[in-house]
């Protein structure tokens, strides 16, 4: 019977689980090591990168400064050369400034007189106007460097002024770039990273690339000091890693700085690790699945096939063969099992043949024994009949003639008469003894009335206290050979009990149960040790008699405890057309034809 495959007990699950565990452990160890090393390297690299980006931004601001200085100086030179500051060329000056502002991408371009006042009409283009023109001389005094100045709209401009002398008048050409979101986005593009940029002026954020820019520059403290190396800030309006590079001079009232909002390397690492873990898990699962499939295909399935073949063989199908391809251990196992199966098959066939032979021999032996017993019984019967029909009849006739001679000898001497009478009496005794012998040889009542009646008749003649019991009245009739076998076994047992056991009381029990006739003979004699008398003639004869019918004999005895002999006969003969006669066939058995059919002799007279 095929047992269902239990997942928990499957080699596949165990193997895969072991592989998964091993891979998992190695992945965890690798991930932890990798994480630790990477965190350290990433922090260092991030700081380097941040410094590099800061440097780029500072350079970008400086480049704008140089660009502004250079362009304003060139423009001023052109304006002076073309006498653009004269009153008559005011329109040309304005148009030239408009053009220059567009070409130089300036957000502010103005011309003011030496006191910082706008010319009339106002010459200012670029969309941004200064809030405080009085600051311009200070820009000039700073030399050729830009400064962050406040514009009219509250924004901030990286501005500078270039002085020009025309017609003995001083003019200032003032230009600048907005310090705003656009510059922040330009810086972000310039540093080429995905970090964000903050522009700080006068203590507030004036430009950024952040989606939600904070109003105040993010800093770990509320002071105006801005960190110059990456510092984590966790504020309601800002969370992140930020560092600054200050611009201009510390005394600058509009003190400016550029901030870099770095992507937290830890979060980057976490993201990378999460992806790595996911990929590792994926690979692990894939490897496990592939291993599982390979194990199943190359190990489990062949084993299951071998197990299935073994079950078929165990179920009796010796033709099922163990098959496995390849040259691996399973194939070797399959080959060995197949060899074992073939040998087993051969041996079993040999054993079967030998068993058949033995069976046949046993059967032959049993038949032979049965024939011997039957022949013996028949011979007894024949002898009894011959005695009855021959010597006994002759003796009876002789007795009758002696009686007649005695009657005719009235005239004979008394002594002769007495002699005849004595002879007659002796002859009667001889006849009676002969009758007794004849009955003992084969009682006709056995054939006519069956086992129980014959046994009762027999024990009545014995000088012993024998009690016969059987279950039903009348006791069922059985095959005559069985009945005679049982009958003579009882006689043998009674003879033994009388001769050797010195029994005072003997019990006989007969019963038919199913297809078995059981005969129990129990005495209260002195008993014996069965193993010591196993080869004695009487007991051996009883054994042979029972076995000849395919039955068995059981002897239970011990010194001083009496003896029980139990014989079990089959109710049918092993073979033969009339092996099993039906119940209630006494009448049939009494018919001559029936006697002839059974091969039994006619009953003695």
């Amino acid at each position, binding site marked *: 019977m095929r047992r269902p*495959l239990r997942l928990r007990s499957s080699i596949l699950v165990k193997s895969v689980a072991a592989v998964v565990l091993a891979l998992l452990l190695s992945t965890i160890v690798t991930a932890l090591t990798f994480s630790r090393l990477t965190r350290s390297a990433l922090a260092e690299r991030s700081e380097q990168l941040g410094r590099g980006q800061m440097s780029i931004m500072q350079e970008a601001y400086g480049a704008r400064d140089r660009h502004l200085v250079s362009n304003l100086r060139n423009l001023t030179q052109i304006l002076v050369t073309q006498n653009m500051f004269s*009153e*008559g060329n*005011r*329109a*040309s000056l*304005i*148009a*030239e*400034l*408009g*053009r220059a*502002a*567009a070409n130089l*991408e300036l957000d502010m371009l103005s011309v003011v007189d030496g006191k910082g006042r706008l010319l009339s*009409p*106002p*010459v*200012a*283009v670029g*969309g941004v*106007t200064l809030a405080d023109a009085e600051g311009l001389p200070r820009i000039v005094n700073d030399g050729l460097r830009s400064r962050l100045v406040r514009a009219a*709209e509250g924004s901030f401009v990286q501005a500078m002024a270039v002085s020009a002398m025309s017609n003995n008048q001083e003019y200032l050409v003032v230009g600048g770039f907005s310090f705003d*979101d*656009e510059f922040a*986005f330009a810086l*972000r*593009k310039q540093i080429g990273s*995905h970090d964000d940029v903050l522009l700080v002026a006068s203590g507030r954020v004036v430009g950024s*690339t*952040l*989606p*939600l820019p904070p109003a105040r520059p993010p800093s770990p403290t509320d002071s105006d000091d801005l960190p110059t190396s990456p510092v984590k800030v966790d504020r309601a309006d800002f969370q992140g890693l930020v560092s600054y590079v200050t611009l201009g001079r510390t005394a600058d009232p509009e003190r400016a700085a550029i901030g870099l909002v770095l992507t937290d390397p830890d979060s*980057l690492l*976490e*993201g*990378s690790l*999460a*992806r790595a873990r*996911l*990929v590792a*898990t*994926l690979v692990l*699962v*894939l490897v496990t*699945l592939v291993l*599982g*499939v390979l194990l*199943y*295909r190359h190990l489990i*399935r062949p084993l299951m096939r071998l197990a299935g073949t073994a079950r078929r063989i165990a179920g009796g199908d010796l033709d099922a063969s163990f098959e496995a391809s390849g040259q691996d251990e399973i194939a070797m196992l399959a080959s060995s099992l197949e060899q074992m199966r073939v040998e087993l098959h051969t041996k079993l066939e040999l054993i079967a043949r030998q068993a058949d032979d033995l069976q046949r021999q046993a059967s032959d032996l049993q038949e032979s024994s049965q024939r011997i017993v039957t022949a013996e019984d028949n011979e007894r019967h024949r002898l009894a009949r011959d005695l009855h029909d021959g010597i006994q009849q002759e003796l009876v006739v002789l007795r009758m003639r002696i009686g007649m001679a005695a009657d005719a000898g009235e005239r004979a001497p008394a002594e002769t008469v007495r002699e005849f009478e004595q002879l007659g009496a002796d002859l009667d005794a001889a006849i009676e003894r002969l009758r007794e012998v004849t009955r003992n040889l084969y009682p006709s009542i056995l054939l006519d009335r069956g086992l129980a009646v014959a046994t009762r008749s027999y024990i009545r003649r014995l000088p012993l206290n024998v009690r016969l019991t059987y279950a039903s009245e009348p006791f069922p009739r059985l095959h005559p050979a069985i009945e005679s076998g049982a009958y003579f076994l009882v006689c043998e047992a009674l003879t033994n009990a009388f001769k050797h056991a010195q029994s005072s009381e003997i019990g006989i029990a007969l019963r038919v149960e199913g297809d078995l006739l059981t005969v129990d003979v129990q005495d209260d004699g002195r008993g014996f040790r069965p193993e010591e008398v196993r080869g004695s003639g009487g007991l051996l004869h009883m054994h042979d008699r029972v076995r000849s019918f395919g039955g068995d004999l059981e002897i239970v005895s011990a010194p001083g405890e009496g003896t029980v002999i139990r014989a079990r006969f089959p109710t049918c003969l092993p073979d033969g057309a009339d092996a099993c006669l039906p119940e209630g066939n006494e009448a049939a058995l009494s018919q001559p034809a029936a006697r002839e059919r059974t091969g039994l002799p006619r009953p003695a007279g």
Partner: protein
Amino acid sequence: MILNHRMSRAAVLLVAVLVGAACGGSGEAAPTTLRVMMTDDWTTPPVLDAVRDFERLRPDVRVVVDKAPIRNMLDHVKGTASPPDVVQSHAFAAAARGMAEPLDDLWDKALRPSEFFPGALDDVTFAGHRYGVPLDTNALVLLYNADHFRAAGLPLPQRPLTFPQLEEVARALTTPDGRQRALALGTSTWQTFGWVSANGGEYVRVTDDGRPQFMFDSPAVVDTIAFLAGLVRKGLAHPPRAADTHSSDVYALFESGATSMYTSAAWDIAKLRRAQPGVDYRAMPMPTGMSGTTQGSAMGGSSLFVPKGSKHRELAFDFMTHLISDRYALRLAREQGRLPVRSRVYTDPFFEDPLFRLVLEQLQTARPERIDSYPDAGKLLANAIDQSLREAHDPAVALREAQVNARASVGTS
């Protein structure tokens, strides 16, 4: 066998789920960079805020904004080694030059053409396909300084002037010393097209078979350029300072008060109000030509397109639709004077402003300047206009020569 099949199916399913999870769950992956090329006066707060907002909505995307002058934007893009993902220009011109990706499929998914002004759709349509998304629209009108009119004792114009009437007004607005003149003229083909269109002219017509038919030397064009050159010659308009004078020169003159009138669009209205809030700036429709029977103007505005070679076509389209969303369209109108391309945005009270209403009315007769589709011919025309306004050549001769050369440039005669 059954176990094997089950295992195989389970393995395939598990792998599919895990691979799907791995691919879909890559929120920490390196951001995609979307490169956007805007014209140089468009990197303004509304656009940058739109960029910020787009990055907030799409954390996996970083938008890098570059800028270049619109007049040579297409040449600039063509010269780049790796094209940007979004470019602001005129999509029809880019398509005509084979530079733009067709976007009909994305339009079908995300946009409804019926919501857009027809003129705005024209700006993105070429040969029956849509190559971009309209960003803004505008039309040239005649801005004027009402204070100058009052100072000159002139009534404020109540209806469009003809070219001759304009010349009369210009004489009154121009001071004898010439420091303040009635007009300042740019020499770009687009600014000049406002006058040409107002006089019923066209630079180019496209025949049914898609071939250009240049009309540089047509009477309407020649008369218009001659009229403008006459204003300069008569001292009523500031002469161009140099070749290719563009709007920044003219705007500077107007803002400073050196000029009383100039042609511009709504973006300068917003700019002027910020720069000179105390000045009474107003606008009138473009003049009705030499005879007073024609109407017209140059349609302005721009559109966005995805250059061929972009690696992020769909993402670029998403950004474009984000930038033209009503929120930013309204901000661009309020803060920059860039008019929305969808009619529904005009329900906002902001558009009840008379100056903007006038621009909207002018849009009814404004036409797009199609010369951008033919850059070589456009340069020839610009040169002819510049030469004419700077009095270097007779307009008729210069334009005739440009006409002949333009035909040759496209292989027609």
